[in-house]
């Protein structure tokens, strides 16, 4: 898999992928167990804070304000990181980010890197780009390790191997670990404790010898140049502390104005994400610490920050869709989504699955290919995702907005240029039906005649529509036709004498 085809048409449209997934009983059982567990725990963690709604409103406003002045805050961030001994690079798209990182790694003379789980580098397909340049990239997050060993794709933002159960993981560790380093013990069982121990031993030798690490970041503070990574296992601390060179690839929307702003997100993110009051480890570092001398000699001596656009500025240009850029990648929306729970993450054909993926991927990549054109429909619009979102992204609103764009076409920004997209194929019949409906609804006489005709012929109603309507009835039952239309019933009742 190369960077450019990640989530591109190689994946089937959502309805096809989902149809397969919902018939996979093991997958459905794994997902149901995992999402229900975390759902209840999250609700309890959130209920502990009386001011949750106020924190949510503050988080939303901080992000909106930052996005409104994103140019200013990125420049401030760059100045602060540079003053603290770091180097800032700017990448317009995935290819440029991969080129920058590959060049930086090659310049160190090293041929392997350890990686902290990062959505941004998954989005750019960095591992594949590094591999093509002869550099081995080792994922160190337990779930990412499971995905990498299984030549698999991540299916959840926080727990990328959520689709695998303990038995599958044990088999994978036994058969694959030895090919990449220290093998798993012969008699490895399927207790999560044993599996975690096997991962600890397997990765330890890599951490201790690593000279270069690649990470993402949860937040970047503009005023101080401070980078923030939240994690649980300690693999993040290993990668961020031990190597000589640290390269962080971060989406431009991850900047926040002030250090104080973290007081909101450090309360809302862990509770939304892992349902904890606080995640086990959070690391904050500022450049190489040489600016003020306070952190000098502690941690990497070279720090590179790669600021990634890759469709984010295009998303920012959409007045409705831009709220998706507030996302802090907590994954609460995945855990509550009835569609995600049944279809799983792979069906979304993107590194961003679930409700947030359904609004983010089509905006970052455009709705030109079949998978992205179907993603806005991968939802029942029940609104549970909006309810739990710690930065109040109105996902149903964006979904409807994107559906409109898919069906009707219209102005969008692609690679910084304002263009008009044409209506997607496959929606011609829907548009024709809508035109016919408008015609009919404008003419009450014709509507009444049509309704009476339908009522009389109601026994002949087919189970499925013929011709272009067939696709519509693939997933929906045709409604029953009543014996009498409402308009006729109303007219008759009104004429009847009052009792």
């Amino acid at each position, binding site marked *: 898999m190369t960077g450019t085809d990640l989530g591109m048409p190689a994946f089937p449209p959502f309805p096809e992928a989902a149809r397969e997934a919902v018939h996979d009983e093991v997958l459905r059982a794994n997902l149901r167990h995992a999402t229900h567990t975390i759902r209840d725990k999250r609700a309890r963690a959130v209920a502990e804070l009386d001011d949750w709604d106020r924190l949510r409103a503050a988080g939303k406003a901080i992000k909106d304000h930052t996005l409104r002045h994103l140019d200013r805050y990125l420049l401030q961030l760059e100045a602060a990181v540079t003053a603290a001994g770091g180097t800032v690079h700017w990448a317009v798209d995935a290819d440029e980010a991969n080129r920058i990182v590959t060049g930086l790694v090659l310049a160190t003379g090293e041929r392997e890197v350890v990686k902290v789980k990062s959505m941004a580098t998954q989005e750019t397909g960095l591992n594949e780009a590094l591999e093509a340049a002869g550099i081995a990239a080792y994922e160190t997050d337990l779930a990412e390790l499971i995905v990498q060993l299984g030549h698999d794709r991540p299916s959840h933002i926080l727990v990328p191997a959520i689709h695998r159960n303990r038995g599958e993981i044990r088999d994978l560790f036994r058969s694959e670990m030895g090919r990449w380093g220290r093998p798993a013990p012969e008699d490895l069982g399927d207790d*999560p404790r044993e599996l975690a121990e096997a*991962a600890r031993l397997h990765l330890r030798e890599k951490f*201790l010898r690593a000279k270069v690490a690649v990470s993402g970041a949860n937040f970047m503070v503009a005023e101080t140049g401070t980078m923030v990574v939240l994690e649980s*296992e300690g693999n993040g601390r290993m990668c961020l502390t031990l190597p000589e060179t640290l390269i962080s690839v971060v989406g431009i929307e991850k900047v926040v104005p002030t250090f104080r702003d973290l007081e909101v997100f*450090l309360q809302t993110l862990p509770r939304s994400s892992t349902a904890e009051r606080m995640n086990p480890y959070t690391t904050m570092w500022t450049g190489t610490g040489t*600016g003020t001398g306070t952190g000098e000699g502690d*941690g990497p001596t070279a720090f590179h920050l790669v600021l990634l656009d890759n469709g984010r500025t295009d998303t920012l240009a959409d007045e409705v869709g831009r709220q998706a850029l507030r996302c802090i990648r907590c994954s609460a929306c995945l855990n509550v989504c009835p569609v995600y729970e049944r279809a799983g993450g792979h069906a979304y054909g993107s590194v961003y699955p679930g409700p947030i993926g359904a609004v983010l991927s089509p905006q970052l990549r455009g709705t030109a290919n079949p998978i992205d054109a179907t993603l806005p429909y991968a939802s029942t619009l029940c609104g549970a995702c909006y309810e739990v979102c710690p930065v109040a992204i109105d996902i149903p609103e964006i979904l409807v907005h994107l559906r409109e764009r898919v069906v009707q076409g219209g102005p969008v920004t692609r690679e910084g240029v304002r263009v008009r997209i044409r209506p997607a194929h496959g929606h011609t019949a829907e548009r024709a039906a809508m035109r016919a409906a408008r015609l009919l609804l404008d003419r009450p006489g014709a509507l009444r005649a049509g309704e009476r005709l339908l009522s009389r012929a109601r026994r002949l109603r087919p189970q499925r529509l013929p011709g272009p309507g067939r696709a519509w009835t693939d997933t929906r039952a045709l409604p029953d036709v009543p014996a009498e239309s409402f308009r006729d019933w109303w007219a008759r009742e009104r004429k009847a004498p009052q009792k």
Partner: protein
Amino acid sequence: MSSKDRILSRIRRAASGPDPEVPRDYLRVHAVRTPAERVDLLAAHLTDYRATVHRTDGDGLPELLARLLSRHESVLVPPGLPPYWLSAAGPARIHDRADSTPAALDRVGSVVTGCALAVAETGTIVLDGGPDQGRRRITLIPDHHVCVVRVPGQVVDSVPQALERLDPTRPLTWISGPSATSDIELDRVEGVHGPRVLDVVLLDAQ
């Protein structure tokens, strides 16, 4: 046009609309607590996340630390750790030198540090690389971390209060319980890469 200029000009064309005032009416603390209640809450929340909490005063500290370290042959010591803390401890004291490799530190079983502060509401201790804490790697590689919190002075109620007291230019490590993962069926398992055993000593420093 450089990529930087291209991204900035795209942002300038795209960003529009209202600029919201950030409402700061959320709570600075979630309850009014006496110092003792604050320390109790910290202890309860640390225990919740499987850290082991001990309480002592200055006189009892050396012996408590000696007991906690008794299973280890060596212990890492930050440069500014008060010498009397380890006055009764048996293990060999190892110092983190500029040329100590991670592999060498991996042979040390334990580490004893102070901290910058602790947060009661979340059960968190924060290290900022101060003299009694040392570089970040010494609290990462050993499998056992003993962290001494001076109470009640170093304990704050909440995350907002913690950030007010911290210096962002220092390397900061927030620790809430020992290393953990929920990556296998979202089942929490303590102990992956960081220290698997976290002992927190609440040192009465009144």
